[in-house]
């Protein structure tokens, strides 16, 4: 049997393979399939359950319960409490993301080289070649037809009227049906989340998958990573099951996410002052436009419009977002009858969001109720957020919105074009804003200097053998673009390097 799901307490599961990959998200699945293609026997060990499209929930409640760690209950512990959104399933966050495909901008490699002594031109070239291949394998294509909803059409119109570049989003999706349900998993199976392709391929090539299997520790023999161990966890009741121990002949890839990878290394006894440091994110928030005619933003791709026009000058990216009705209530001001009346307008709302290329740095620590994410946006980043909010409002008005609903504390519930200045003057206190973190970086940052980084430019943990980082935690800066493509390409690069180094 090559897939082991939850097992009742009893006989432990023991296996030996060439390589272990901890976590099966963007990084883990990409590393696993690359290792398997190279002829190695791989075990993917994943904390979440393996759910296929027929198992996916439809509601936001089901999404939080079935596809997110701790019911989606993680939030930043900083000046403001902003939700930190991640997936927990075979396929990781790719199961619940919008699959937006953006190549790594060239300036990122230049910056890594200048600030961290890694990356540079040679890495840019290799990542570019891998990204070419990934785009073919995962059907990268621009949204067309049903995938471009009315909200997206309005956004295109607004951006064109203001004279900035924007386009239907390019995504890893084959023939999108435009159901706007990506965040709960694509039940139509069109979105190329990695549980549908790289993980099954890893199995077909002789690999093993352990699901419902959170790794408790990496087993170290001296400074060599020799395996992993933990206990199966029931995906519904969370009770512990049988123990498992997997031994690795060559090594262990850690790809448990920017939040979990540093914590796993720490509890495995790895001592490095940079563990949990250099945490970055792209915090995002959105504004609703209110239109005279129904927008019905649930029709079309979840994120069918985007613009990178302001990444370099303003430090943000813009996108449309079909936010589920369940989550709209929390985004509209007011309560009681006032809120009920506002929710009547749902069909007339279009939500557009920004992702801020934030330079603020946070850190990850173990906490009493789970991970503790210390993170607060500094003033400069808040200015970027506010500038993006102003531009989104202007875009809504240019597209014909009658009002904009900013959702910022201290501002009126809705404003017309004449009151745009209220957003320009909006408070810069993060507590006035309702934002989320969904693009996460760092925690095990790469760098040439072992005193300031956890892994080297090839992803190997400093001072250890056979221990590699293959997820977003190795990324030492923000990217300013959606990260899945970069994470997958880096993971494949790590796997290919590891294979070339492994002794037969």
């Amino acid at each position, binding site marked *: 049997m090559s897939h082991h799901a939850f097992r009742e307490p009893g006989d432990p599961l023991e296996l030996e393979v060439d390589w272990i990959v901890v976590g099966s998200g963007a990084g883990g699945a990409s590393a696993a399939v690359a290792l398997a293609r190279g002829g190695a026997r791989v075990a993917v060990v994943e904390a979440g359950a393996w759910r296929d499209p027929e198992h996916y929930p439809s509601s*936001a409640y089901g999404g939080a319960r079935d596809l997110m760690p701790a019911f989606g209950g993680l939030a930043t512990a900083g000046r403001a409490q902003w939700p930190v959104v991640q997936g927990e399933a075979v396929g990781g966050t790719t199961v619940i993301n919008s699959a937006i495909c953006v190549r790594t901008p060239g300036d990122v490699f230049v910056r890594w080289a200048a600030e961290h002594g890694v990356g540079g031109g040679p890495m840019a070239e290799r990542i570019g070649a891998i990204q070419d291949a990934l785009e073919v394998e995962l059907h990268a294509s621009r949204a067309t037809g049903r995938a471009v909803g009315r909200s997206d059409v309005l956004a295109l119109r607004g951006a064109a009227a203001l004279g900035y570049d924007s386009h239907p989003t390019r995504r890893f999706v084959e023939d999108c049906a435009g159901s706007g349900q990506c965040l709960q998993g694509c039940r139509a199976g069109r979105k190329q989340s990695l549980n549908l392709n790289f993980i099954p391929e890893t199995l077909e090539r002789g690999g093993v998958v352990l*699901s419902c299997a959170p790794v408790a520790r990496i087993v170290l023999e001296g400074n060599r990573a020799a395996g992993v161990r933990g206990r199966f966890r029931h995906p519904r009741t969370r009770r512990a099951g049988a123990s498992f121990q997997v031994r690795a002949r060559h090594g262990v890839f850690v790809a448990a996410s920017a939040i979990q990878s540093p914590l796993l290394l720490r509890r495995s006894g790895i001592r490095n002052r940079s563990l949990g440091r250099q945490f970055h994110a792209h915090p995002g928030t959105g504004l609703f436009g209110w239109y005279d005619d129904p927008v019905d933003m649930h029709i079309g791709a979840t994120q069918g419009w985007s613009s990178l026009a302001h990444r370099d000058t303003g430090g943000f990216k813009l996108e449309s977002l079909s936010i589920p*009705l369940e989550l709209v209530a929390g985004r509209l001001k007011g309560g009681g009858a006032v809120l009920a009346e506002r929710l009547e307008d749902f069909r007339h709302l279009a939500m557009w969001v920004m992702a801020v290329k934030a330079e603020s740095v946070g850190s990850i620590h173990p906490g009493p109720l789970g991970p503790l994410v210390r993170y607060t946006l500094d003033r400069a980043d808040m200015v970027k957020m506010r500038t993006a909010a102003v531009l989104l409002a202007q875009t809504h008005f240019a597209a014909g919105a009658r009002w904009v609903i900013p959702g910022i504390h201290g501002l009126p519930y809705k404003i017309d074009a004449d009151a745009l200045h209220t957003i320009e003057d909006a408070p810069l206190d993060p507590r006035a804003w309702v934002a989320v973190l969904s693009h996460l970086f760092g925690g095990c940052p790469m760098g040439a200097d072992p005193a300031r980084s956890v892994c080297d430019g090839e992803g190997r943990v400093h001072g250890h053998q056979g221990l590699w980082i293959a997820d977003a935690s190795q990324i030492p800066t923000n990217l300013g673009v959606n990260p899945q493509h970069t994470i997958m390409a880096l993971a494949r690069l790590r796997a290919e390097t590891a294979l070339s180094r492994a002794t037969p």
Partner: protein
Amino acid sequence: MERAHTIPHRRLDPTAAVVRSAVRAMMPGSSTLPGCGELELDAFVRRLLHEASWPMWLATTASSLAFVLTPPLTVYLPLPSFLLPASLLDRHADRMSGHALYPVRQAAMMVKTVMGMHWGAHPRVREALALPPYPEDPGTWRTH
């Protein structure tokens, strides 16, 4: 493949009662939309409290309790929210969500999030807003 499970029923459940009262007040309905109280709220709350992770359970109950206890900060009456007359309860729900104190606002936001998860997924609400109904969440996964 595993099936979804049944939720145990307890006759007296003060935690569920607190959450229910906060959620119901946050979404009383309008002339065209049903309120949470009309939409099998009891079953939803029991399910949530049973299935939620420990941090989520804590956040839900603490926020609901805050809703019950904060009328002195919003409508300036030393009464728990469930003893307020309807018009004041409504004002409390509205003012709490825009309160100057961040923790109070955050508690209201949490109650609204819970409310939204129930209300926004309900077939009657979805029909009223021209949204397709959700099929039941299977709650299943691959077991081999």
